């Protein structure tokens, strides 16, 4: 069984207006499907409001899908109760975007790192302390820091503590929600290198959520691009970056500023702003800003289908196969 996580047709909405008047829902995630294999890094990339963070929390069931299925290691976990989920959480840990808020400031570093051990194992305090020290060394912080409090550490160091914590119970999957976005540029690369080293060492799978396409390219095996709650394209890294099929992916990639002044690129500048997720456009959600919009796009939601092996896209341009499609 190669598949670690399978997400099938998952939808999730949030009620944002109760009481008098018609109820309004925010459609955060709209019928998405993807797979994460053991030991691989699958990234979800997209801009604000695209639903990638919500998806991360659906995978580890901090949220419950409205419809669709979530499978973990061959088990259907879609509707499991909190109590039933608890033992499974040993295998899927999370690293958060904000290294300041995700660690309880009243706890010592060693207690923070060992918390999953307290929850999931019966190790003695001494054994936990020893493991915590080992973990701190492994993430590049000396074990002498174990007795200190988090406020003494920088953002990058705190993120390492968060990673050590996630590692403590030897999970199979780590969901990393924008783990380096809040860090300085020169520290980002340190943490990214660390994540890669740990993956090689422990055979971890990552669900890597980010808006930064350069970071994502560096660390991923496969990538899913999200827009306004839908997955618009999924492919192996090289296929996506060499030949993005979906107009949004193309625009996204061309929008990234490259730190090289000699590179002059053809920019695809999208018109308009992101539509409101409370009132998404009809048909293909991207049609209001798409440079290749056709009549059918305004009315019919395109199917998410395999355009070429391993490369999925939801776009009417490819209804008749890749050759018939738009720009390469």
């Amino acid at each position: 069984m190669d598949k670690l996580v399978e997400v099938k047709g998952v939808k999730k909405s949030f009620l944002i207006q109760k009481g008098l008047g018609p109820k309004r829902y925010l459609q955060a995630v709209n019928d998405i499907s993807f797979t994460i294999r053991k030991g691989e890094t699958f990234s979800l990339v997209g801009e604000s409001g695209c639903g990638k963070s919500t998806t991360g929390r659906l995978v580890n069931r901090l949220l419950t899908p409205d419809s669709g299925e979530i499978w973990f290691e061959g088990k259907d976990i879609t509707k499991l109760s909190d109590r039933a989920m608890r033992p499974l959480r040993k295998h899927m840990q999370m690293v958060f975007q904000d290294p300041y808020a995700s660690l309880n400031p009243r706890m010592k570093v060693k207690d923070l790192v060992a918390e999953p051990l307290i929850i999931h194992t019966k190790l003695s305090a001494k054994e936990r302390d020893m493991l915590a020290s080992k973990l701190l060394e492994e993430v590049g912080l000396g074990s002498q820091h174990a007795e200190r409090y988090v406020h003494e550490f920088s953002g990058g160091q705190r993120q390492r503590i968060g990673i050590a914590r996630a590692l403590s119970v030897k999970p199979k999957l780590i969901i990393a929600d924008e783990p380096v976005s809040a860090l300085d540029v020169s520290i980002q690369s340190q943490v990214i290198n660390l994540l890669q080293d740990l993956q090689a060492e422990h055979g971890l799978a990552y669900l890597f959520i980010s808006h930064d396409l350069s970071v994502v390219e560096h660390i991923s095996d496969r990538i899913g691009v999200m827009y306004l709650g839908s997955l618009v394209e999924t492919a192996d890294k090289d296929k996506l970056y060499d030949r993005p099929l979906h107009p949004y992916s193309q625009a996204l990639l061309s929008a990234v500023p490259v730190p090289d002044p000699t590179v002059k690129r053809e920019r695809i500048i999208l018109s308009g702003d992101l539509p409101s997720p409370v009132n998404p456009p009809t048909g293909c959600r991207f049609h209001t800003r798409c440079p290749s919009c056709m009549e059918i796009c305004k009315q019919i939601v395109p199917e998410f289908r395999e355009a070429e092996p391993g490369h999925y896209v939801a776009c009417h341009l490819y209804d008749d196969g890749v050759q018939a499609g738009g720009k390469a």
Partner: protein
Amino acid sequence: MTERLLDVQGLVTEFKRGSSQIRAVSDVSFHINRREVVGLVGESGCGKSVTSLSLMRLLKDTPGRISGGKVLFEDRDLVTLPEKDMRNIRGNEIAMIFQEPMTSLNPVLKIGKQLEEPLMVHLGLSRSQAKERAADLLRQVGIPRAEEVLHDYPHQLSGGMRQRVMIAMAIACKPKLLIADEPTTALDVTIQAQILELLRKLRADNDMSVLLITHDLGVVAEMCDRVIVMYAGRVVEEGSVQELFENPRHPYTKGLIRSVPKLRQKVHRLESIPGNVPDLSQMPQGCKFAPRCAYATERCLKEEPGLLGVEGTSRKSRCWLANEQTWEERGAVTDGQAG
């Protein structure tokens, strides 16, 4: 008219923390020419935002004070200018846009009203003239349905729209210098592309200079003519954008450029700068970057270099090795601390 629009000489800004004074900006000197886009680059804590606030004399509500140096704008020294005259310059000859448009726009005033204010105050326009001009400005910054947006409140607009409104307010009086402090950092990447495009167009149309403050090297490469790199409150390197990226003459710049993942780069492992930015109250002796520097010599650890010229160019670098052809890796002299 001189070519130099802004000439910062030896700027020093200090902050009161507890009972001691901390130098957030230490002996910073640079200049901006007419019609030039200059990038001010650095990571958090390097002093770039404090520098921009110092230039605009906006430190009144903070524990910071300019304690030395000159800021010559055309021929006037902004540091010693009376507040009354400074107010005439702000929003009029020098304008500023910030990272978070939501906090710079007044949430209880309509957009139209906020736009009209600088026009009426600085240009002496009547209300109806200002209204017309405001709509015109919104169109200039690419906001469709300009007349409708004049009646909106800031919270009704998206982040990209709010940033456009702020830009409209900034260019309303056709300033000579626009200071943009991380203008696109809070925006999505596709919106960022729109805003950068807009800034380019406006700069050409209005003949402005721009001081673009950012930590994003990609934005710098795309937008700037010249770049100033700051670290620990000091300027560590200065030069044209091509020279800087092609052949950085300061190890920090070099490390920074190499640690940013670039699209289509295909490297196995990213380079990184070990260690952390030093605490402003506990700065090392000698070169402030030396503890993290792979090429640091004994001299670097003891003596702080001045901003030296790089031979054969107009570039400057605060590094004893600035003029050496090759740099020898001596191993970073950190205390083993990861960042």
